[in-house]
């Protein structure tokens, strides 16, 4: 328990530093925001007024405090582009991203683990090597490339799946999932190898461990040994990895969301970056950071619950 509180506090510190970096990146670098938003032809007084209205002419430290103290209460500032509060946009995008991320997660994690365990039972054989190399190669191909191929095959030639994730208004859950399958597939391809690699290494180590040998010598059936002894230990590192993946799936899908016209937080960050809408950009980026932090604390919780050694410490 103590360990988890410490872990959560560390995440908060990390988030604090991240907010500083995001703030400095968003406020310092772009120069005169009023000029950037209103354009080069705008009157100097209009620019000054714009900056003053947004409080951009105050000292940086005051601006930072103002921003972050409102941010934590859910007031994320006002978008330059929409001249409306940022928070509702971020909230809606986050929900959409969580849907897409969750679907990708439930597809890729079991597949990756199954692939890794399968390969681990064939270490050194061609099938193991082929799976590892395939996973690795798919993992380095950018998502928009695999997306193009998948869109061509399933959207254009076979016409099985809609090419955009933008489902009709009021669509039910099943229809929404149907629209999300094509955007999810490239993610499965990219992350399959990553998860399989970690699961494979964990399984190889667990298969080689003394407790496994003992269990086999004790005469336990192999299926039981795999389930009770090998998998439980092999999956610990995999869980840590899937947590960072969960964070990424919920916030890092800039390319996929843009490509499939999906209004998630990745697309929101992209649009904000394009329009130099810094309040929106900062809010989006910091939200993703928060999702990351939550995901990694959750991962520690789960691995503490699974790991007999950490469990013993806690008792």
């Amino acid at each position, binding site marked *: 328990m103590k360990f988890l509180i410490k872990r959560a506090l560390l995440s908060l510190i990390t988030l604090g530093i991240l907010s500083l970096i995001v703030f400095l990146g968003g406020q310092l670098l772009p120069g005169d925001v009023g000029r950037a938003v209103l354009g080069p032809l705008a009157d100097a007084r209009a620019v000054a007024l714009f900056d003053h209205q947004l409080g951009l002419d105050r000292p940086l430290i005051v601006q930072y405090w103002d921003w972050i103290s409102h941010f934590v209460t859910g007031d994320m500032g006002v978008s330059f582009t929409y001249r409306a509060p940022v928070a509702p946009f971020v909230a809606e995008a986050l929900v959409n991203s969580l849907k897409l991320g969750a679907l990708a997660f439930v597809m890729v994690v079991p597949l990756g683990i199954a692939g890794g365990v399968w390969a681990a039972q064939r270490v050194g054989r061609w099938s193991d090597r082929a799976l590892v190399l395939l996973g690795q190669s798919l993992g380095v191909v*950018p998502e*928009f490339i695999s997306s*193009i*191929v998948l869109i061509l095959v399933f959207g254009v030639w076979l016409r099985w799946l809609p090419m955009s994730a933008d489902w009709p208004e009021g669509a039910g859950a099943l229809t929404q999932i149907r629209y999300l399958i094509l955007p999810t597939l490239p993610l499965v391809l990219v992350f399959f190898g990553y998860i399989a690699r970690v699961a494979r290494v964990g399984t190889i180590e667990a298969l080689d461990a003394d407790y496994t040998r003992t269990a086999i010598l004790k005469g336990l059936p192999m299926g039981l040994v795999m389930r009770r002894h090998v998998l439980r230990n092999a999956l610990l590192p995999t869980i840590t990895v899937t947590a960072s993946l969960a964070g990424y799936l919920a916030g890092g899908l*800039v390319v996929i969301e843009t*490509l499939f016209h999906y209004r998630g937080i990745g697309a929101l960050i992209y649009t904000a970056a394009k329009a130099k809408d810094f309040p929106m950009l900062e809010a989006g*980026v910091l939200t*993703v950071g928060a999702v990351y932090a939550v995901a990694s604390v959750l991962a520690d919780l789960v691995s503490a619950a699974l790991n007999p050694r950490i469990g013993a410490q806690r008792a």
Partner: protein
Amino acid sequence: MSIARERLRAAAHSATLITGLAILVVWIVCALFGSAITPFDPYADNLLSTLASPSAAHWFGTDQLGRDIFSRVIMGARDILIVAPLATLLGTVLGTTLGLCIGYLRGPLDDVVSRVIEAIQALPLIIVALMALAAVGTSNATVVLVIGFVFTPLIARTVRAAVLVERDQDYVAAARLRGDGRLSIMFIEILPNVLPIALVEMTVRLGYAIFFVASLSFLGFGIQPPSADWGIAIAENYSLIGSYWWTVLFDAAATASLVIGVNLVTDGLKSVVDA
């Protein structure tokens, strides 16, 4: 049996290494001598033959402006093969230096830098890069700088871990007793011993750099038109994918082959270093 298996494995590794190198060489040749190879001028419009499907004259067809896609795919290797390696090199030099400093000196500097590294890693790299590029503006130079800086902490972390092992070795203690300065211990004694790790990390990063440059170019934050870059071409023609598949498929295949080639080389090199 085990020797035979060893040989088989070695052969497999060299096969991946050779395949990867072959792919890389093809693209490097295209990047260097592209203008001499291309059958057509990759930048020349021909409004009389726009969006022509692949034929004997235009192997990969033509795009919206009637430009020969085969020629553009060949020329498209150039910018990404300049930007990605430069960014990787920058990240490796900065990251190795930083990793040496915080790993050897430790103390408050290490604490602060390690925290900042952690904070940056709490975000997907593509988002860090997008934010930075939105702030400083997009050009080939800023893409190199941003990707280089984004890679710096990642490489620093790897090098730092290696330095932590080295700093307690006898040769470092000997150098210290000899009265060598910190700088000379870091860069003359320790650096050569952590360099192989830094170099392997560099080839891994090169693959990711290509991944990033391609993705950023696709998003409009990387290499800029009128370059024949593959990512740009895909972004420009993506809306035509339903009717004119050849305007995106060949560029996609080119990008995929380049990243897979680099990955095969990395994989091969790693097994050579591990052996």
